[in-house]
């Protein structure tokens, strides 16, 4: 394998890596974070209410 060829493979490899990472963010990470954040927010309000507090609206 020539140096040039080697360079090409790493290049396309890390390009693939970048796209994979983006895909991961779109499909897994952000949806999960979203659900967790909203769920957590709901949980906090629910807890405040459960302890007899009043949530301003």
């Amino acid at each position, binding site marked *: 394998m020539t140096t040039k060829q080697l360079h090409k493979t790493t290049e396309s490899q890390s390009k693939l890596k*970048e796209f994979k990472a*983006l895909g991961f963010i779109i499909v897994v990470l952000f949806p999960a974070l979203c659900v967790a954040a909203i769920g957590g927010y709901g949980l906090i309000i*629910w807890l405040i209410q459960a302890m007899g507090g009043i949530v301003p609206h």
Partner: protein
Amino acid sequence: MKYFKDLWQTLNKPAKYLTLGSISLTAFIMGIIFWGGFNTALEATNTEEFCISCHSMESKPYQELQATVHWSNNSGVRATCPDCHVPHSWGRKIARKMEASSDVWGWLFQTVNTSEKFEDKRLEMASREWARFERDDSLACKNCHNYNSMKWETMSKLAQKQMKSAAERDQSCVDCHKGIAHTLPEMGTARAPQLIAEVGTGPSSFTNEQPYFSALTKPLYFSPTGDVQAGTLNVATKVTVLASEGDRVKVAIDGWRKKVGLGRVIYFDFGINMLTAQLSKEAAKTDGIINGFEEKEDTMTGLKWQRVETELWTDAEYLITEQKPLWDYARTTFRTSCSVCHTQPDEAHFDANTWPGMFQGMIAFVNMDDDTQALVQKYLQQHSSTFVKEAH
């Protein structure tokens, strides 16, 4: 693990191939899709169709709603399930949606999928629902109804009086308007569990010739074993135990009756409409069941009254040795249940014969089982001006 390490390395350094344009465009589109998708999903779970896709297995809430003003009215405004059951503000809506995981749980385990199961759980579910309305002062109702826009002049006298004072305090609607959309839970059959928890079920053995007091409205029988009922003994009534046999006791009941018809209702005292016992027609017709003594005429009503005594059998349970716990319970119940609607009058404000009418007018808006109702009414009569004056 290696996968995540690689991933982190890629994410942690500036993109080499993805352009800033494509990254921000992705972010922008994702934002739109996420926000839109989330709210669409939220809206989808906030439609009546969604609710009744489950709440039709027992059909009840939906069918019951259809018989109410919130289903069809002159104004043509329809209140849907989420209008009343799901808060509007975003945060609370999410919180309520999380609480609704108990709906999903219940659906998975089929907690209310038949009419019987639903009725069994109705009180429990309604209690939670009432707590929710109380928690936010019936905000859901107030999204449509506004005290300030109510036209008092055209309301009934009762509505005006009650609602005006409610408006001053911005009171929660469901304090008074329970069962506005569904049938109220059956509360009369549970036989006053709280009352019994408070006063106990009574001793297991009895001393003859001693006074005892009924803790519930109790059935009366002709004999220690037969199941033919001779009538009912009112709650908080003093009786004298004469004999015990099996799980029944023979009790002596005395009082006065009106000399009209069969005269099968026994009252506490001459001229006082305070229930002691109600005998059946058969019992009243049978010789020797009711023994009559002297008679007196009530000049107020022109009715003749007669002092009577009777001896009948009743179940040995729910006969307690003291009357005071019953009055204590009744006082607390009266104070807490009736002050919800208005400052309740003093016990001695009315006389023993006026209280029943007053009380019946009040309890229309309070959830009280039959035994507790009877007890509180008797408490009010017993502590009315009729007796308080005499005590002075």
